[in-house]
């Protein structure tokens, strides 16, 4: 089975570029150039230099002993939370800003949910001296105030998306409209493995540094490059795509993707796309999508703004349909519990997104000798207000 993108931009039946003609020149320019740009020695050197000296890579692979004891397996945390700006998102924005420069773009736009991608984009724009506009749902602006302040301090203009559920999906619609209205000088830095081809593939390639490092670090610490499990949360799915990337063809490695169940799968307030969705088109790609019988997109719910998305990257839709990925979901409540547990056991406050991956540890049956790598995609500083509401007394 092939898990990489085809020449036409598909993962199995999913992916493609379902875009209006107004977007075609922008997307086509990127599609025809991204691989060649990413292969240039000067590009690779610049990318890796920034990842090392600016982002602080490689991020540690930390054996969480007390967490391991709790679950009866050997659990390693891939510490993407320790990256500059606090999440894996910066791996992709560093890559894309270098691509944008080579395409001669002067103006950068982005969408953001939790604000992590917005911050990571505003950061690289400050670094490169480029204009930055970030679209963010009005609801998310309320619940992720610290990240809004960071983006503003970094010089980005934060534009509220006021349509629909006023969350990530709507912010993405607005960013796409901006790109339609500003052809030529603008590059759209999509934050996840979603959108029209080549975005899912390009973002996965930039995030694949995560699994590239895991293999080396795991070999050093356990003598084997291959874990039994890799676990990651999935909204659009960029941290999962990066954590799975170099294990896709090692079929003995179980790849576990954890979606947000919100208030429960059947509650009507959920973002568990593989359970609740069916094939459809969102933001220019064919994928699994939460929608009504009439093909209208359903507004999702999750306590975590970064997972509050009604679709899923086409690569994940393919991993789900092909059976290569194990798809689980965690409720708001389970994620909060897992977040508090990690904090008390290891002294690490995880982002609410990553807390969903941690919650999946409860649902898996491990053998004592199992090696588990959990991608701790981000830190929880931005979520303190939510955590405080639920702080166990």
């Amino acid at each position, binding site marked *: 089975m092939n898990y990489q993108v085809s020449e036409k931009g598909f993962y199995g039946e999913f992916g*493609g*570029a*379902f*875009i*209006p*003609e*107004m977007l*075609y*020149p922008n997307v086509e320019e990127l599609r025809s150039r991204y691989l060649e740009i990413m292969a240039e020695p000067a590009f690779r050197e610049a990318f890796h230099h920034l990842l090392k000296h600016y982002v602080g890579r490689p991020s540690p692979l930390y054996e969480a002993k007390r967490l391991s004891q709790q679950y009866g397996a050997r659990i390693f945390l891939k510490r993407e939370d320790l990256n500059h700006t606090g999440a894996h998102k910066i791996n992709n924005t560093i890559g894309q800003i270098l691509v944008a420069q080579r395409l001669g773009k002067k103006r950068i736009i982005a969408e953001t949910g939790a604000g992590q991608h917005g911050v990571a984009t505003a950061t690289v724009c400050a670094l490169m001296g480029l204009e930055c506009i970030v679209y963010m749902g009005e609801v998310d602006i309320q619940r992720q105030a610290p990240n809004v302040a960071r983006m503003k301090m970094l010089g980005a203009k934060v534009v509220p998306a006021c*349509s*629909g559920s006023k969350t990530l*999906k709507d912010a993405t*619609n607005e960013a*796409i*409209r901006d790109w*339609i*209205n500003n*052809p*030529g000088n603008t590059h759209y830095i999509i934050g996840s493995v979603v959108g029209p081809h080549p975005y899912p593939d390009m973002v996965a390639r930039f995030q694949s540094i995560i699994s590239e490092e895991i293999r080396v670090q795991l070999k050093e610490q356990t003598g084997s490059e291959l874990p039994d499990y890799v676990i990651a949360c999935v909204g659009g799915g960029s941290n999962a795509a990066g954590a799975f990337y170099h294990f896709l063809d090692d079929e003995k490695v179980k790849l576990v993707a954890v979606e947000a169940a919100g208030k429960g799968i059947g509650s009507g307030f959920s973002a568990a796309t593989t359970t609740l969705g069916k*094939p*459809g*088109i*969102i*933001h*220019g790609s064919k994928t699994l*999508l939460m*929608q009504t*019988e*009439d*093909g*209208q*997109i359903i507004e999702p719910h999750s306590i975590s703004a970064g997972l509050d998305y009604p679709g899923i990257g086409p690569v994940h839709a393919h991993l789900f349909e092909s059976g290569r990925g194990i798809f689980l979901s965690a409720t708001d409540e389970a994620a909060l519990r897992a977040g508090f547990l990690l904090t008390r056991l290891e002294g690490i406050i995880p982002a609410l997104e990553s807390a969903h991956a941690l919650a999946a540890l409860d649902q898996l049956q491990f053998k004592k000798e199992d090696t588990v790598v959990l991608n701790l995609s981000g830190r929880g500083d931005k979520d303190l207000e939510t955590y405080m509401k639920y702080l166990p007394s």
Partner: protein
Amino acid sequence: MKNRIDLLFEKKHAEILSVYFTAGFPERDDTLPLLELLEAGGADMVEIGIPFSDPLADGPVIQQSSSAALKNGMSMRLLFSQLRDVRKKISMPLILMGYLNPVLQFGMENFCRSCRESGIDGVILPDLPPDMFEEEYKEMFAEYGLHIIFLITPQTSEERVRRIDDLSGGFVYLVSDSATTGSRNSFSEKQQIYFERIRAMKLRNPSLIGFGIHNRETFTRACGFASGAIVGSAFIRSLAENKDIMQAVQSFVQSVKKENHDHSVA
């Protein structure tokens, strides 16, 4: 029977007015009354928009009409049932315009069959890639006698314009500016050069200009470069601002097609 879009362009070569409205707006059951008023008021063709929750190629006016229509309970099934007897009253060509996802959920063949049964002549699906249309749906559209109309923008390369012209039927839709609908006011020199460039290509299909056509002046100027023009946001705005749809159609037709207002609906 010959496609009504082709018949229209055979008998009329200039000043064709095509009007867009979103089905289910302002009220759920306005579809047929609006078609009657527009035909009587002097529209040559109508594009009926199928509302979608996430219309990412549309500007704020059409977005709002779309979400209002969905709140009113509009759906693909309801639209086709409203259109069941449309051909007893309406003779102008009718086009359905919508995003791909609702059509795929309805089923492409089911959609084409329903179009033929209700007398729809053409379809515009802005997010359906021409390549995919050619590979998967071209024969189906031909079988059901439906034209597909693709969009051309100022950035579309000459080679791609030729290909879009080859695949399109009835006419090609010239987007006046690379912008979401309804966001521009007049034509720049750059746009005029673009319209001239397309005209000089002598495409096999006639063309209509859309996006940014909102009054008599922009309509007339667009008609100087193409067989006619498409008005969308300006008409939706008129529907939103007027108390009843009859007034809305009247004041809209007056603003765009002055010479027709004498025999417009009374």
